[in-house]
């Protein structure tokens, strides 16, 4: 009996945290799936087709492609950013503060590192869902010009994780969700508007352009756009991936330290 009751520890205990997330998602997946499909449809219809036809009626293109083709990959990266940020904000604070789920998890062999591994794997899966659905909508809107475009899905996922990792660290330090208003108002929304999603950043005032180059969203947009338009430059793509991986690595360190400071005292 006790041989069954006390098996050898599993190789990746964080997978049990993933199981928790799946159990929660199974209870409220409908709304999330619907909105992850509806948002790209609405955005591409309004901005890509509606605003795009207005742009091209003046005979204009953006870098030689239609506005829809220019915009769609930027929106994919931006939606990955927004969904990942949301997943790393309220649910994490809830598990630290409101439901105290993490304290229940830590009353088992799981440690803080396992919690973080489980959450990151879960958000990566969510990114895969969101980016795949978005890519499917793009195909339906005929906004994908290159076979390389399929790699916009992993590029979008990487963009999302580059935001999720540091935001987990931020959430672990909050005492209430007022901090999220500041995060979304002063970080996420400005990035959404000014990181090259809607217009090339060389349209920005010169002093703002270096700042845009530092943000993870600009690198994500640069990657996804290069892939779906087939205009990708290998050297730039390497820089884009390196910067995003740097955000992931630094974010994981911050998240690990913040969670430990909050949970193991």
């Amino acid at each position, binding site marked *: *009996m*006790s041989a*069954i*009751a*006390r*098996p050898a*520890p*599993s190789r990746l*205990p964080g997978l*049990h945290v993933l*199981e*928790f997330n799946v*159990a*929660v998602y199974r*209870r*409220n997946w409908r709304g999330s799936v619907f909105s992850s499909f509806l948002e790209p449809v609405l955005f591409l219809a309004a901005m890509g087709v509606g605003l795009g036809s207005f742009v091209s009626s003046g005979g204009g293109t953006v870098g030689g492609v239609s506005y829809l083709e220019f915009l769609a990959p930027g929106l994919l990266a931006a939606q990955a950013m927004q969904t990942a940020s949301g997943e790393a904000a309220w649910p994490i604070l809830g598990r630290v503060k409101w*439901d*105290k*789920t993490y*304290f*229940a*998890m*830590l*009353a*088992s*062999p*799981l*440690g803080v590192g396992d919690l973080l591994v489980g959450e990151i794997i879960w958000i990566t899966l969510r990114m895969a869902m969101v980016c795949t659905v978005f890519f499917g909508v793009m195909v339906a809107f005929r906004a994908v010009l290159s076979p390389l475009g399929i790699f916009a899905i992993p590029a979008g996922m990487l963009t999302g994780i580059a935001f999720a990792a540091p935001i987990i660290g931020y959430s672990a330090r909050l005492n209430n969700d007022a901090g999220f208003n500041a995060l979304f108002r002063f970080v996420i929304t400005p990035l959404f508007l000014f990181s090259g999603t809607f217009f090339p950043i060389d349209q920005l005032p010169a002093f703002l352009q270096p700042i845009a180059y530092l943000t993870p969203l600009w690198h994500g947009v640069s990657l996804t756009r290069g892939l779906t338009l087939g205009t990708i430059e290998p050297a730039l793509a390497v820089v884009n991936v390196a910067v995003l991986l740097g955000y992931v690595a630094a974010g994981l360190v911050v998240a690990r330290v913040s969670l430990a400071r909050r*949970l*193991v*005292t």
Partner: protein
Amino acid sequence: MTALSPTHRPGADGAVVHARGLSKRFGALTAVDAVDFDVAPGEAFGFLGPNGAGKTSTMRMIGCVSPVTEGTLRVLGMDPATAGPRIRARLGVVPQENTLDNELTVAENLLIHGRYFDLPRGLIRQRAAELLDFVQLTERAKDEVEPLSGGMKRRLTIARALINEPDLLLLDEPTTGLDPQARHLLWDRLYRLKQRGVTLVLTTHYMDEAEQLCDRLVVMDRARIVAEGSPRELIDRYVTREVLELRFPAETQAALYTEAVAASEDTEPDVAPLTPHEVEPVSAVVGPYALESGTAGSGRADVRAPDNGPESRWAALDGTTAGETATGVPEGWSAGELRSALEGSSERVEILPDRTLLYTSDGEASAAAVHERGLRPDSVLVRRSTLEDVFLRLTGRRLID
């Protein structure tokens, strides 16, 4: 009941928990100050103490989620600093605040928690069915947790803590905030676990809970252990067998209280926590008086001493119509004389703003002695001493917020 048959594998020295000089500091605050204790296999061991005494900090260190600042701690024979996950695999934890997954059902809570311990799903389902039966929640298995009552959530938390068949169950204030029915049901379940040989370590500030459940307990006050023993031993050691509670008319009691406070200020009463060696079981020490009459709002009568001062005599208290029936005290007595008379009738006297406690080996005899001296309190109550008397003796009557 396979889910509830534990196998004990304590450390080499036989103790399930072994602490020597165990300390926990948060910056300048010392939450636990060099405590020593051992918990034996199969024992129900309690930490008693007021809020902030260091009970929860101690429990979190035993639960391997709070690093030890100083001293030695061994849980199931292992060091939490190096074997945390291996120790936690064999613990069950019922925290002070519920940590249930409110969005999931009762059964899902058990399933998911069992998975944290890497148990196979089939085994968890089998144990979950047994445990839900044990805590009388079988009919709620498919319901969400959120709408359950406080008592049900507490029972579910205990069932969840048992999913890994723990060798040691840690319970931090298991019944705080529950109604009497829910508390008694929980006590019954915990008693059954104890009978099956599960080692229980619990914190509480309910004395009846400690008397019901604990084989042995320590009293903590201001980060230190101030007493240790079985409930009966502690009562024998720190208080008398019985307590005689007297309630004099409000003005008499107020004058008596004022006089006692004034007297104790002359003699510097010992309101610091008493260590076992310092306590004199039979003495005429009066006190402690840390609770002043003006702050006695917590359920006690708000009695204010008259302005007459402690030296005034009882005939003067009530003006012209003063007499035995009005004051309960022979005419012409001073508050000091009343206190002496009470002290002469018992082994120790404690004067509170609203009533007077006489600690005595024979409550009826003391009541008769009080009556013989011509004293006529409004009410006289003889009762057995409880752990609560020990607790208040050791930790004082200060309000702790």
